[in-house]
């Protein structure tokens, strides 16, 4: 039981439930309590701490991961409900030592300062490109509005994403289809 989510009154029957998740390509057989969020499962039980907890209420995007290739907020996702799904976190984007083009672009364009929002920004941006609907800086801004950056790195984030859409957008979108 993780200590961050203090349990409220014990009103229901506790039961741990077996589930199977594919996480960054690896099949994992896990047992979860139904109230465990996907975010807490990743961070506290699987030690995948790349995914960040900002608000824990769907308001910041720091916890963004891809579930079956779609970007979602893992803080508002119960792990038990995703039985059978395939999860990609920031740890799963690179191919061995080769960074994902989005990771390269964030570095090249200095698209972060403290870095806390960055894993969520990058996963969200990868999701955005898989969706294939952003064709201008304006559209990138709107479709990345679910990821807040307290350091205000928005300008460079948009530039980094624009670059990847130009260079790799078609390939990434195709791979998602």
């Amino acid at each position, binding site marked *: 039981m993780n200590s961050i989510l203090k349990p409220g009154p014990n009103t229901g029957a506790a039961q741990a439930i077996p589930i199977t998740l594919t996480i960054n390509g690896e099949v994992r057989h896990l047992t979860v309590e139904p109230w465990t969020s996907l975010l807490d499962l990743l961070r506290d039980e699987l030690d995948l701490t790349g995914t960040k907890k900002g608000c824990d209420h769907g308001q910041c995007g720091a916890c963004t991961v891809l579930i079956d290739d779609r970007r979602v907020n893992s803080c*508002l996702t119960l792990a038990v409900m995703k039985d059978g799904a395939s999860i990609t976190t920031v740890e799963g984007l690179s191919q061995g030592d080769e960074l994902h083009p989005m990771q390269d672009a964030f570095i090249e364009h200095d698209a972060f300062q403290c870095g806390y929002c960055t894993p969520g920004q990058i996963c969200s941006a990868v999701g955005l490109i898989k969706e294939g609907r952003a064709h201008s800086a304006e559209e990138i801004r709107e479709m*990345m*509005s679910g990821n807040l950056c307290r350091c205000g790195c928005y300008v460079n984030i948009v530039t980094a994403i624009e670059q990847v859409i130009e260079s790799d957008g078609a390939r990434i979108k195709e791979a998602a289809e």
Partner: protein
Amino acid sequence: MNRFSYARPTDVAEAVREVGSDPSARFIAGGTNLIDLMKYNVERPTRLVDITRLPLTTIDKADGGGLRIGALVPNSDLAYDDQVQARYPLLSDAILAGASPQLRNMASTGGNLLQRTRCLYFYDTATPCNKREPGSGCSAIEGVNRIHAILGTSSKCIATHPSDMCVGLAALNAKVHVAGPSGERVIAMADFHRLPGDQPERDTNLGPQELIVAVELPDEDFSKNYSYLKLRDRLSYAFALVSVAAALKIDGGKIAEARMALGGVAHKPWRDTTAEDMLRGKPAEEASFKPVADHILRDARGFGHNDFKIDLARRAIVRALSQAAAGTPQTQTDKRIK
């Protein structure tokens, strides 16, 4: 968050039975509202019935020519569906004006209808709130009420319904199909959500064990002259202070039919058919819209911090109708209001 047991039914009848097995059981779909509220101990279900495996995930032609949208269709899939974009662009725009791409990927059609108010006191279990705890009082009426309602309020509650999607559905005369222990029934959108009255704890007329199975859009064409205008504190990822869904049918420069619903101003999407009737036969131009805006707001009442909403709503109505008349709907990307 309290502890709870978990069920994952695979058909509608079983889901309805499951939720009936425990008086404080709840359905869960996208989880974006329920889990949030559970983390604040506002909702404390002892059993969650996960409905995401029910076969309610498709958008199909309805008998009668409209569209039938399964309750589990995610908000993003609904907004980007080809048929919805072609025939009901007002609904697409309303959905895309709300939340974020991640949340829209998770949020379901049924869950969006049943999302609860964002009143800060409702969320804060340390303060009185008639909606959360009937009879405890309303903290907002004399408290911080900038985001609260100006129409249809009661002395018990002045909360708003926060959905954008529902404002579009109300303007489009949608119907909600529900299944319960005694079979299926259909509820018109206008009758689905309630005004607070003496029972602010009841947001809707859905029974406790009833499951939303689908939303139906009628076979009507408002795809040319429409606009969803949403005004808020930042350009994206914020709830509406005021929003307007406007749709017109125009014949030879005159309005043949008008539809309008307002968000952010009441406990339900605010639809006033007497205002729509006033527009029939009038020229589709700004001079026709001002009296209608005044008419819709004739009984509006502010509570201090939200007084500004009355004027804001008046102007938003005129602007949205003008955008609709001109065939230049508010874009949901570039939020500048033209």
